[in-house]
């Protein structure tokens, strides 16, 4: 399975090679494939990721995955990306959109770039959608990982930029509920005065490593937002489209939480 995934990522996944084995954002499929292979025990045995509905991801063309977000470090994002790579046929490389402080982090910025993470500026996202790539966005931004344990699975600040781009580029939006991550690595506190490498705060986790909660990923049906690309200029339509996706994601989260037997089971 691991070698198959490796081959699918390196040889089959659509990739815009700039001539040296990297794309313009620094993605290196071989590094990505090696990382996915290395993450296999974490995905299969530690978090025991159970995924339903990945068939909803369009096989080609621009598309946006929108998910809830939590945890001290973006482990939930990593598991989602691994899941997409393993379950799409042909393999699609999800381009995770990161906050602006991520490129300032030494080593992490380079590692993330090689794995397909892109700095979340409008021009970057536009470029990806114009190329017909699959992007993954967490509209909660840093407010997701910063939420208190008591607020788990409650969507925090909900940015609407993804809806505008989805309408403009006619990219279907697939909501994804990530269950398990919000109990896996809760935040004990955050040091707000500490801005290491531009990060908004320094997280103090409640446990030294993520707890082995059982991850459940639930993909919803794709939403085609707006009637045509011109709707992207209407802020009210954009806001209502973003709200539509938020409601769909909340329903997915509620359903998945009801279905699970326990946090660790």
């Amino acid at each position: 399975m691991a070698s198959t995934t490796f081959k699918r990522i390196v040889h089959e996944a659509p990739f815009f090679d700039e001539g040296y084995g990297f794309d313009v954002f620094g993605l290196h499929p071989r590094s990505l494939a090696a990382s996915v292979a290395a993450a296999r025990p974490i995905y299969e045995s530690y978090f025991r990721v159970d995924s339903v509905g990945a068939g909803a991801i369009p096989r080609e063309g621009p598309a946006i995955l929108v998910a809830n977000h939590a945890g001290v470090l973006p482990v939930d994002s990593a598991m989602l990306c691994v899941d997409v790579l393993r379950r799409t046929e042909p393999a699609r490389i999800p381009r995770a959109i990161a906050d602006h402080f991520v490129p300032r982090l030494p080593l992490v910025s380079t590692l993330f770039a090689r794995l397909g993470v892109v700095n979340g500026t409008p021009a970057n996202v536009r470029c990806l959608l114009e190329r017909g790539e699959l992007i993954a966005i967490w509209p909660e931004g840093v407010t997701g990982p910063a939420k208190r344990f008591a607020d788990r699975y409650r969507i925090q600040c909900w940015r609407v930029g993804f809806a505008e781009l989805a309408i403009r580029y006619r990219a279907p939006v697939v909501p994804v509920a990530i269950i398990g991550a919000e109990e896996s690595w809760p935040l004990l506190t955050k040091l707000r005065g500490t801005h290491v490498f531009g990060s908004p705060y320094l997280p103090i986790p409640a446990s030294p490593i993520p707890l082995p909660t059982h991850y459940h990923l639930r993909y919803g049906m794709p939403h085609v937002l707006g009637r045509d690309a011109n709707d992207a200029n209407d802020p009210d339509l954009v806001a209502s489209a973003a709200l539509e996706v938020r409601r769909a994601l909340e329903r997915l989260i509620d359903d998945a939480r009801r279905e699970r037997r326990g946090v660790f089971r």
Partner: protein
Amino acid sequence: MRVMVTGATAPLGTALVQALLGTAGVELVLAVGRECDPTLPSDPRLRYRTVDLTRRRALHALVWGEARTLGVEVVVHGIQHRRVHDQGAPIHAQNVEVTRELVLACTAHPTIRRLVYRSFAEIYAVHHGTSSILDEEAPLDFDPRSTQWVRDRVEADLTVCAHLGGALSIAVLRCAEIFAPDAGSQLWDYLQSRICLRPLGFDPMVNVLSLDDAVAAFAAALRGSATGVFNIPGCDTLPLSRAIAESRRADVPVPGPLLAPLYGLRHSTTGFEFRYDMNIQRFHFIGVLDGARARAALGYVPRTHVAWPRPWWRLLVEQLGAEQAIPR
């Protein structure tokens, strides 16, 4: 077509003059430079003039004298001081005032109808919040802490852009770094060292332009009539570490704060041209030009890879391969 090329003795100017002389439809090339004995090809269509363009009277005499007499229609201007450590009023005059005076002189000229101006990718601001792909609307570097090298280029670019939409047809080509000696490329200078110090933990993508592609872009701009600003990216987009490896240099990651003093020390002791404090953002974050507009309006597509230094055995193999490929 009758063309005047300023900076004709610089690498880009020389290559452009040669390309123009090999192009059908070019009746005359008026090459302008500061050197008295340039290495330009001998061709009856080529006229070389030694002119110090920083002297306003000389510039005016050239444009309204010989250029008018010869019926020059298109001007290619790309004079910028290359050395990054030089600064002061004379450098500013060469970088900005010459451009200003030349544009003004061309604006109401009876024969000159088009100006193609060579600008630089380095004028774009690059930091953690800017896009990795820089289109023509990307923010420029207005940081007052920037070096004069950058500030002058921003000012000169905007000076030309201020005349867009007027009677004079203007194309501003914001070129990626031309990877060639004496072309003003900081990356080229950086890679001249056997040991290349790189900020630890950062390996941004860089884009470099070959001299051939730069010439092709200017030739396309000369032929066309499209006006505006156009990004001219190169064919090679690769991580900085890969560029170091391709150049057969030793890649030594060093904590970022140490690099500016180390390269400063190197400049003061050996005269090394590379200036790290000017490139600090580009050595941390991606800033690659988006050439979509140039592709659509000028038909420019980068095609030629830069020539990375090769070891002697590889050159020998390539040479033998080329000889065998010659039909007998």
